[in-house]
């Protein structure tokens, strides 16, 4: 082996190491949180959250933080949380875990042991929440999660973990229920899933629901994280000529999927995608090509939920407040984030104390109406009070089409072929 080749090989090793290192990074404290002082509040309630404020999940982390902050500001402006004759002013403290789940665990522990946070709001996603819940259970500190929905996260016997999002199984069920009530319901389903914890869990829940309704799964393809071409799974599915194409992944993947469906003239009668179409950036990226895509979601601004003026008012009021403050459209994640605050507040008021163990017990039996929806946790701590909403993109707008009480429009089915749009 010549010197230059050895040189080349060692360079290869170095680049590989550096590229891998980019996914990691070390811990530095994030920015301290704000929150306005609110009149008569006397004591401070410290709530901690580790969030991915930089790295791959920076966008999701920012949205979640905005939701937490909006709740903290609103509750402080209303005089804080009353409990046991005192009023508590909320202070948020954040650390940036740089989209690295192992860092999330360490930072949640730091929040509890060094900063003495009395409650924890969840990190982003099922993976990080699962990891962090070991720590919150160890120290008996309640953690409320606005972004974990995988059943596996909640089936570890954790007592202090509560999730606002409805379980994944309901996501699949709601999507298939809507399609199966059509006059000429679809018979065949093809599924393309990102090979990743959450997208795969949703894909499997849709698969199970479709089978239960007597639909045939004609193909189930998985693509790797970060795929820059989805033509192969799309062509495989297209060859089976399915009535419904289900695509799971994140916004990046699903924008690519829809773009390539058009390129390849793939025309199923319906396209169901999650999660991506509920983000405004999806519609902005695809323009008119985003139309007719169906997506299950946990929350939408058009839903008829309200807290009767106690905190934010209705779902629409919250969406308006959020848009005014942060200048971008709210989605389910940022709504569930503020929902965590609303739920914690209700539990503290019900318990009459900020003692974490008693607040935990109050959470377990809580039944309350919030702007996010009716809240009721099941035995493993997942909120089953708020149902799944199905939206369809129509003329660039997210239109709720199911369940009937939340629907503001009708499902357009079958969707027109690409050539006829």
């Amino acid at each position, binding site marked *: 082996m010549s010197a230059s080749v050895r040189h080349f090989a060692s*360079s290869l090793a170095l680049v590989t190491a550096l590229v891998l290192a980019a996914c990691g990074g070390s811990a530095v404290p994030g920015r301290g949180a704000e929150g306005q002082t609110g009149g008569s509040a006397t004591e401070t309630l410290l709530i901690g959250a580790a969030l991915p404020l930089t790295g791959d999940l920076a966008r999701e982390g920012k949205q979640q933080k905005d939701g937490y902050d909006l709740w903290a500001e609103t509750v402080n402006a209303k005089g804080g949380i009353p409990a046991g004759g005192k009023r508590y002013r909320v202070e948020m403290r954040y650390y940036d875990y740089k989209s690295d789940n192992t860092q999330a665990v360490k930072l949640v522990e730091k929040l509890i042991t060094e900063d003495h946070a009395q409650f924890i709001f969840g990190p982003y996603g099922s993976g990080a929440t699962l990891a962090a819940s070991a720590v919150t259970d160890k120290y008996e500190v309640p953690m409320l999660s606005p972004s974990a929905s995988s059943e596996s996260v909640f089936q570890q016997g954790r007592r202090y973990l509560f999730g606002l999002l409805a379980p994944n199984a309901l996501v699949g069920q709601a999507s298939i229920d809507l399609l199966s009530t059509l006059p000429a319901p679809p018979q065949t389903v093809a599924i393309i899933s990102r090979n990743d914890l959450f997208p795969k869990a949703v894909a499997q829940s849709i698969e199970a629901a479709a089978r239960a309704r007597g639909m045939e799964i004609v193909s189930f393809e998985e693509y790797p994280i970060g795929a820059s071409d989805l*033509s192969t799974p799309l062509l495989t599915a297209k060859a089976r000529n399915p009535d419904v194409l289900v695509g799971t992944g994140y916004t990046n993947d699903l924008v690519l999927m829809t773009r390539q469906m058009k390129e390849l003239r793939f025309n199923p009668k319906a396209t169901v995608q999650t999660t991506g179409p509920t983000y405004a950036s999806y519609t902005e990226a695809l323009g008119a090509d985003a139309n007719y895509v169906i997506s299950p979601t946990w929350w939408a601004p058009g839903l008829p939920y309200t807290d009767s003026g106690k905190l934010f008012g209705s779902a629409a009021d919250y969406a308006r407040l959020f848009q005014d403050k942060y200048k971008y459209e709210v989605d389910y994640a940022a709504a569930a984030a503020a929902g965590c605050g609303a739920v914690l507040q209700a539990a503290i008021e019900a318990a009459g104390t900020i003692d974490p163990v008693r607040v935990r017990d109050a959470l377990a039996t809580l039944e309350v109406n919030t702007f996010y929806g009716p809240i009721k946790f099941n035995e493993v701590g997942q909120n089953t009070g708020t149902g799944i909403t199905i939206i369809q993109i129509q003329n660039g707008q997210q239109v709720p089409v199911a369940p009937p009480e939340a629907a503001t429009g009708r499902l357009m089915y079958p969707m027109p072929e690409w050539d006829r749009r």
Partner: protein
Amino acid sequence: MDSGLLGQALVNGILLGGLYALVALGFSLVWGVMNVINVSHGAFVMLGAFTTYWLFVGAGLDPFLGAALATVLMFALGYLLQKYVINLIVRAPIFMTLILTFGLNLVIVNLSIVAWTGDVRSITTGLSGHGVVVGPLIVPYLRAAALLVALLATLALFLFMDRTRTGSAIRATRMDLLAAEGVGIRIDYIYALTFAIGAALAGLAGGLISMTLPITPIMGLTYTGKAFVVTALGGLGNMAGALVGGLLLGVAETVGAALLGPGYQDAIGYALLVLILVVRPTGLLGRVGYA
């Protein structure tokens, strides 16, 4: 295996490979001439993509014109970065160049996230998603145009390197630094120019990518990785090598996915890399000692 599916996978592989080749071209040039492995190359691709995107959204500029403008802007940025930053370590051990460009990558990417958020974006024009049907195969217009531009850029670089005095000076610098200095070639200028050309090619590739694929500020490192694989496959500092390596990687990814399942897409690319390094460590078109 359905032959129609395989044929379409081949077409998509070639179209994707053209973009990989263009990304790798500048990366390979800088590495070959300056012995700098530019980890921030992907960040330049991202900046080119976002320049094109913002010109399209903000000024309504046609993305092909936008990509041309992005090329020019990235040339200027590359020139300045080399002159004032990269030049500090250009003769240091290669590990220093990795650390510096890795840091540069972090700075560019995170500033971009702060400025533009991490949102996914894409340029959608009237042509997006449309294509020409050839028998059982579909060739999307924009991807085909991107491949054509990539081929033209490779040809242009080849002619520049082969036919001009400046190109000869760059080649001379690559072959023997001391001798090049001895005959009066201004090495600092050649280095800045080479890095600028590398950045310009990255910017052009980014502009083309923004028309066909979704873009985010964190997209860059994927492309740095692809560029590295392509360079290793095709041979270092070799323009035809970048083209061959790029097309090979694109086709291997899509056809391999069609044969083995899409889950193997990335594994196939890297398996190919390992195979080439074992069988032919200089890359397919590389020559021993040329690196």
